């Protein structure tokens, strides 16, 4: 009755992503909360400062990028915590499949759930903050390139702290410094676009960072998970 039939690596990754989506469907909060946080936090800034179009436009790139960054970081809490608490993480670490890809697909699933909505909604908020049209597309592209990096880096921190209770702020303190380069390049792209300067180079840089993150951080994540489970 047990089946020796083995499925390929691809289907393993698909199954993992599908599970993440399934879970998100079951508890919509995991998708809605990051998005809501993003929107609310962005609106806090006009409320706390001037609302002249010129002023808003200048702060818009920074505000949107910083809040997106915080939203992604906070969303990470749901990445490994549940699996750690109910013991699924142990089972994952004991799977004969290459963990590199299992972790990668988990991260991918999380990105789809937590980040994609943010990227999609970013233009709306950008317009509310009177960001010049030229900046919009650049903003979206930079977020699309940047958020995966944020998730990949953040996942390392999350994997390290998942064993500790009340890890929210600790995580922030650990990984926010690591987020700085992404933030600088991301906002740099938008600013460049607004002042219509070329920003292809910056995008290329971010792409390189993304490639690096994809290839390295899963290794770090796996190592960190082993430590946390230990």
């Amino acid at each position, binding site marked *: 009755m047990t089946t020796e039939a083995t499925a390929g690596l691809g289907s393993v990754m698909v199954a993992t992503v599908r599970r993440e989506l399934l879970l998100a469907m079951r508890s919509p909060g995991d998708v809605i909360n990051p998005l*809501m946080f993003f929107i609310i936090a962005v609106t806090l800034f*006009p409320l706390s400062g001037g609302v002249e179009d010129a002023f808003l436009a200048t702060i818009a790139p920074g505000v949107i990028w910083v809040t997106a960054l915080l939203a992604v970081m906070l969303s990470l809490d749901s990445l490994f915590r549940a699996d750690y608490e109910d013991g699924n993480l142990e089972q994952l670490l004991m799977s004969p499949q290459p963990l590199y890809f299992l972790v990668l697909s988990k991260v991918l699933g999380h990105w789809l759930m937590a980040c994609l909505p943010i990227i999609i909604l970013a233009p709306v908020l950008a*317009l509310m903050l009177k960001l010049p049209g030229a900046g919009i597309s650049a903003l979206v592209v930079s977020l699309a390139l940047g958020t995966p990096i944020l998730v990949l880096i953040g996942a390392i921190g999350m994997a390290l702290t998942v064993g500790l209770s009340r890890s929210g702020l600790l995580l922030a303190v650990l990984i926010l410094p690591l987020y700085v380069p992404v933030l600088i390049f991301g906002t740099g792209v938008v600013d460049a676009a607004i002042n219509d300067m070329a920003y292809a180079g910056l995008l290329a840089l971010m792409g390189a960072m993304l490639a690096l993150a994809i290839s390295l951080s899963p290794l770090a994540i796996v190592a960190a998970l082993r430590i946390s489970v230990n």
Partner: protein
Amino acid sequence: MWQWLYKLGSPRWFYELGDRCLPWLWGITVFLLVVGVVWGLAFAPPDYQMGDNYRIIYMHVPSAGLMKGCFYMMAICSAAVLIWKIKMADIVAKAIAPIGAMATLLMLASGSLWGIPTWGTWWIWDARLTSSLLQFFIYMGIIVLRSAFDSQDSAARACAVLTLVGVVNIPIIEYSVEWWNTLHQGASSLGMRDASANPPEIWIPAFFTGFGFIGLFFIGLILRSQNEILLRERRTRWVRDLVAREGTRA
């Protein structure tokens, strides 16, 4: 009075009351909406300054009213949940929340659409706009909180507490936003006030649509509540019988 309240507290009674009211409601609502919309869109004269696009008001203002009304109703239900532990009150509160959120969204959307021709932009950080946005967030918060609980009773009471906290806060929020807005810039809330100076031909249809919206609201409320009732009472006698009867009819 208390007797009546008590009855309203029983899901079955509510369910059957709903069944009795629905046909009438449908009739009245459709009538109001048809008259209001046809009159408003076809016969009412174009506005002297805003041309034809002022007609959005026929959906904008009523939804704005709903946004407020829904929350007050939720607040009353929440009080009933916490003080008298009336299950029905929670069912209604749960049913209202998404409607209120939708109404707020509708108003935001219609408002922004309206803004494009009138203000030349679909969004300004005007006091009323901002507080509407915040109101939408508060609705969402309540909805999300409920979805986060597994146990129904806990969810009911938790949402009730949050709603009441929200009620205390909303006046403060609106005031603060007003104040903040007047500090920063004034004139942007144009159109909101002077619109009331419009001729009656414009306003009468607005009343029709307005009441039509209220009708729609109650229909949605009743339908959602009835679903919720059937779900929660599925193990009780009368629901089983009801289902059996429906089954035979179908």
